[in-house]
């Protein structure tokens, strides 16, 4: 009886009937990004960002829409409709599910950046001059707070950006607690106003878990100096078979070695190597 009940409930929920979130019609200005760059390169839309969006989309990263009003990231449920516009500003119309973080796109009309009205929040979030940088006291406090989070492992990449007093959290984590804690801890910081939480909790399916285990073992063996007791400078995000390498290494050769090692892991579909080479870094 219980099983039957649960199966029926699952079927009803699975077919979108019952308690599922209702999609709302929405039209907004935004930026069409790749899933990878929207979770990594948070902040203003610069040439570097556009290059990242286009390159990773070409390599298979799905399109997402970055809503200009709050920096929210929405997975596009019909990716073909948005694929050609990755790396462009656009006026997007579609059925939006805010809690689920998804949009079914009806139209994506590319627009010039200058076409976005100057008084729209979208303008604030896309322009460099609004962004706080390293050295700003509130920015530094947010950075330190996130750096000290206890449950962050080599599989958790948590990043943020700050436009005026608006903090946008982003990245990938394997622990639900990290998503909640990042929000709570940043919320307590004086000088922080609005927070948009784009931090995605990754699924723990057996294939992704095997890839994580192999990537971690290989990189620790060959690049052990980037790992220590409570953390690492190399981050390994694994999402549906894709491996995303993030963080800092001291040499280009280390970045290449990490890339090669992850590329030969059975079950891994694609490696996005976004490691930054920072000569002179401590390791």
């Amino acid at each position, binding site marked *: 009886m219980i099983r039957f009940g649960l199966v029926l*409930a699952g079927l009803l*929920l699975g077919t979108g009937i019952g308690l599922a979130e209702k999609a709302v019609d929405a039209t907004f200005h935004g930026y069409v990004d790749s899933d990878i760059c929207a979770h990594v390169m948070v902040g203003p*839309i610069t040439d570097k960002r556009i290059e990242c969006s286009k390159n990773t989309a070409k390599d298979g990263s799905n399109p997402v829409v970055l809503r200009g009003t709050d920096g929210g990231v929405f997975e596009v449920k019909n990716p073909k409709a948005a694929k050609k516009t990755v790396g462009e500003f656009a006026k997007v119309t579609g059925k939006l599910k805010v809690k689920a973080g998804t949009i079914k796109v009806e139209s994506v009309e590319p627009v010039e950046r200058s076409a976005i009205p100057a008084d729209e929040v979208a303008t604030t979030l896309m322009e460099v001059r609004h962004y706080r940088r390293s050295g700003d006291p509130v920015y530094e406090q947010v950075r330190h707070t996130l*750096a*000290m989070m206890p449950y962050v492992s080599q599989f958790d990449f948590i990043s943020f950006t700050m436009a005026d007093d608006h903090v946008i959290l982003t990245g990938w984590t*394997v622990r639900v607690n990290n998503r909640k804690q990042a929000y709570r801890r940043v919320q307590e910081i004086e000088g922080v106003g609005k927070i948009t939480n784009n931090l995605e909790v990754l699924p723990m399916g057996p294939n992704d878990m*095997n890839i994580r*285990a192999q990537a971690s073992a290989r990189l*620790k063996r060959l690049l052990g100096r980037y790992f220590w007791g*409570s953390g690492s400078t190399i981050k390994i995000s694994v999402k549906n078979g894709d491996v995303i390498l993030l963080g800092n290494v001291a040499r280009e050769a280390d970045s290449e070695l990490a890339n090669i090692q992850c590329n030969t892991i059975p079950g891994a579909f694609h490696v996005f190597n976004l490691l930054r080479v920072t000569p002179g870094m401590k390791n």
Partner: protein
Amino acid sequence: MSTIRNYSTRKVVWCLLSAVLVAVLVVACSQQPASTSSTTGSAPAAKRVPAGQDNSGFLTDYSNLDPHPTIEGALTYIHPDKLQGLRNYVAMIVDPVEVYVVSDGDPSSIPEESLSTLTGYFQYAITSAVADVFPIVDEPNPLALRLRSALVGVDVGEGAIGGELSDETAQPLARSINISDVIVEFELVDSESGEVIAAAVDNATLGSGAQVSATHFSRMERFEAAKSAFDEWAGRLRDFLDAAHEIEGGEDEERANESYQPYSG
């Protein structure tokens, strides 16, 4: 007009389906949260604490336990190698809870239903306490820990406790179970190699005066003491994990702070 009719029909269908779903959920939720772990199967048979011994024998090794600096009454162990230790793991398999009756008790006197009522709730409590920091998985993996746990010192009551049960879905147990002197033992082992990564003996007897004598006891006020005890033991396990994950001062803190440089556009 036809739009209005279509809308009304859709509304009726929507209401009916919602009603069915609510009914189904009520039925499903009225059951005891027994097996919430990925590990299915019935609870192992109860064992007896060996007479004249200081411990139950549940843990692999008791000799390496030390008093925990902040959790009063807990003896704990953590693997000393930081790279191979607790922080190396990101998921957990929760094994069925084991039960050890007092040394002069008779394990066979605990009916199976009583045993599963007791262990089912405790397993639910510990799974709830850890799942947001160690997602629960089914399969062994080098990144998954296996959590073994035992309720030690369970005593069997004389018989069922009389009186009406406030919850209609609950059934009285044939024998009540006394958890007054129960302590809890935990062990976290590598899910592939079985190597002990952390262990704890929680000597806090939180169930003083508490007993369980009905299924679904956690929903009834008269068994509140037992529910609170299980929840608190689970909470103390979480405290132990939280403390072990705190970034230590000095070099660890410095490296964590220096290495954290967010990407920007």
